[in-house]
């Protein structure tokens, strides 16, 4: 503790020696260097080694880098902007941040050439922690790294708490750091992390207060304004959220997150065409396969098939051969082609272009189901029937909603209405956190196949079977019949093991059980398991966070 305080005061007063630094132990730090030019890669590695880093990994492309960072975490990533591959350094960073693959403890530095510097340095969002202009002499590199590691050392208590999902602790640690009155930049970063914790706890009131505090220091930081807009959205004040997001776009016309928030608002308000336009604008600013996919899906649901096809092809073109390549893209394209009446095109997409993907699991089911629709359209009804049967045989409790929807559509088209409706019902049951989205797909598939009259029935039935079991479980747990309630929950989860309502009931049941049954180890372990699943499926959900607080109270952590 004594030593910590000394380090901290040295940090705060800026009295650290300019060159030699006592508290940054470079030999303890690991780094990943990504550069497509061998000489540059080795040069940077040598420089890092000269600084004392002995755990330096290198790679020449983003795909390999992605594989590496998913199994090992690094203190530092030095990434070249121009990777001469399907993925640039900016794509890589965006992917890491949007998929939450980058821990706050990892410092990401973009290495750029002069010509690219302007583009990198002006990225408002998905910005790296720092950027260096290459080539960078060793002393300069050291100075930049020391700044970054100083900052990280200061913020570490908060980062640690956030990573452990101990949000309340993250907030008290933030407050402790704020009380030390660090310089403005560190203070802003601390407030940013504090807001992150409050966001996770869905504490909108406290969140607004934190943003206000940040505004008093800086009234021009886009993340603060964006945070306020998001907090309004969370508090369901759509007018305020819309107004602020629009102001933000007026100031930063390239702020993609603001467009995406507006699109979310429009979707919530049922204005899907407006949402589509906003998504289109965001993809124009920062093209990515993920954005093209979102536009394609949105256009598809609106029946704008030409646009859906165009965007779907863009997603495939941009992602082929890169880390974000997905077999689902071919399914989406083939379904669009089928709906357009281009059955031959759909068959070509699935049988030729997507032949490299193994025909298993949900992909195999959807592939056979879409082929069944296409072959039906070209008059090969026997082949179509066989394909439906083949798809049906592959169905398991883990089959995803998209595959079930495709199968349902194929079955109805082939005249098997009973199977079709049953599978559509299961698609709804399996929809989990994606319920609204799946319901829209099911609705469209049923409209397309002339079953509009049965939509409400199917959507209700899917949810109803699980809800009946969940209700029974809730009744039983209230009367402290925990074992019986557990059986009901298990039955609900057997229908679909990622149903959110069922999982919430399971978590709640186990928390009450823990409270009554003085902490039976098996029950504690199961409670923990359900909470972890929920946290993965619906990150930062209000109820789940409440359960976590309760769980921590009960276990005293």
């Amino acid at each position, binding site marked *: 503790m004594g030593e910590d305080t000394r380090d901290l005061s040295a940090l705060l007063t800026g009295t650290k020696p*300019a060159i030699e630094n006592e508290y940054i132990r470079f030999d303890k730090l690991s780094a990943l260097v990504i550069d497509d030019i061998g000489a540059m890669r080795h040069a940077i590695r040598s420089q890092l080694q000269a600084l004392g880093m002995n755990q330096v990994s290198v790679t020449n492309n983003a795909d390999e880098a992605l594989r590496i960072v998913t199994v090992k975490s690094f203190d530092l990533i030095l990434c070249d902007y121009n990777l001469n591959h399907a993925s640039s350094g900016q794509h890589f960073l965006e992917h890491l941040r949007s998929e939450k693959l980058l821990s706050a403890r990892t410092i990401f530095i973009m290495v750029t050439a002069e010509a690219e510097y302007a583009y990198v340095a002006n990225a408002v969002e998905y910005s790296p922690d720092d950027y260096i202009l290459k080539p960078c002499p060793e002393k300069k590199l050291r100075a930049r790294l020391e700044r970054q590691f100083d900052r990280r050392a200061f913020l570490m208590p908060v980062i640690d708490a956030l990573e452990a999902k101990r949000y309340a602790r993250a907030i008290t640690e933030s407050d402790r750091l704020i009380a030390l009155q660090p310089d403005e930049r560190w203070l802003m970063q601390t407030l940013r992390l504090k807001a992150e914790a409050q966001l996770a706890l869905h504490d909108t009131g406290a969140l607004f207060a934190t943003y206000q505090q940040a505004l008093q220091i800086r009234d021009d930081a886009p993340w603060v304004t964006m945070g306020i807009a998001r907090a309004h959205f969370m508090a369901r004040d759509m007018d305020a959220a819309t107004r602020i997001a629009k102001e933000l776009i007026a100031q930063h016309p390239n702020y993609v997150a603001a467009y995406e928030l507006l699109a979310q608002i429009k979707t919530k308000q049922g204005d899907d065409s407006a949402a589509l336009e906003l998504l289109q604008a965001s993809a124009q600013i920062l093209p990515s396969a993920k954005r093209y996919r979102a536009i394609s899906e949105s256009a598809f649901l609106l029946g704008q098939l030409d646009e859906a096809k165009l965007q779907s092809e863009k997603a495939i073109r941009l992602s082929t051969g890169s880390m974000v390549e997905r077999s689902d893209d071919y399914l989406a394209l083939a379904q669009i082609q089928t709906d357009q009446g281009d059955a031959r095109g759909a068959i070509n997409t699935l049988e030729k272009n997507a032949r490299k993907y193994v025909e298993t699991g949900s992909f195999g089911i959807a592939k056979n189901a879409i082929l069944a629709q296409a072959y039906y359209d070209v008059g090969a009804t026997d082949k179509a029937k066989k394909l439906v049967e083949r798809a049906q045989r592959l169905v398991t409790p883990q089959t995803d909603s998209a595959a079930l929807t495709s199968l349902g559509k194929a079955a109805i088209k082939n005249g098997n209405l009973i199977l079709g409706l049953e599978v559509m019902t299961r698609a709804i049951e399996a929809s989990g956190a994606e319920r609204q989205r799946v319901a829209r797909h099911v609705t469209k598939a049923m409209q397309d196949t002339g079953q509009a009259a049965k939509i409400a029935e199917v959507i209700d039935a899917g949810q109803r079977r699980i809800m009946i079991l969940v209700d029974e479980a809730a009744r039983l747990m209230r009367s402290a019949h925990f074992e019986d309630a557990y059986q009901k929950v298990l039955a609900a989860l057997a229908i679909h093991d990622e149903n959110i309502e069922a999982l919430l009931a399971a978590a709640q049941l186990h928390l009450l059980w823990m409270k009554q049954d003085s902490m039976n180890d098996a029950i504690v372990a199961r409670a923990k398991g359900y909470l972890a699943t929920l946290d993965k499926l619906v990150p930062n959900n209000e109820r789940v966070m409440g359960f976590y607080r309760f769980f921590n109270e009960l276990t005293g952590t």
Partner: protein
Amino acid sequence: MNPALSALVIHDIKNALALLEIDLEQLNHRPDMPSEAYQAYQRCIELKSRLINFLTLYRHEQSALRPNLHEVVVKEFLADLIAASQSVLMSSRQGHHVAVRIASERISIAPAVKRKGCAHFDEYLLDMALESALNNALRYAKQQVEIWFEQQPGKLCWYIADDGPGVTMATERKQRSAAAPSANTGLGLALCQAVAEIHGGGTVSVQNATTQGALFRLALHVPE
């Protein structure tokens, strides 16, 4: 020669020089490194920085130089400049002991400045300009070089003072140094001028200090 090809070739040379610099830098980490290796390293750095300065000036003359304005904490920038300065490193290695210090007591920030100690400027270009000015000061200094800044609303002035012979006979330093084989003061001053211009106009001067030595001053317009 076609200009696009020339640009490609010159960038290629610049990158090759930079890699050579890193190679030599690594070589110099060896305990048994001969003094020639150090000289080679030094020559390489000078050559590279001269080439980069020249390219930057060239781009300015083609009206292609644009600043990337970013908010910079001025004191941090200054500390990094000195910590990472190749000129400072070189002069300390040459056995010619010139101390470079941040003259904290001379740093001043006007009360009317809204965001005290922070300013928007292109840190890479400014680093390049000040490095060349620092290099020049170190070449003439006897014992000490001091560097500091003054911040006023919309304006940031940088000062570098040395305790050398000063500017003699009312000539500019660039003339005085024209004879020195490795000196590129003329290029350096022109670069500083270019950096000031693209920041929306500013001034560069070198004059005799009130006591002794020369005083370099670079005044930049910075948006509030």
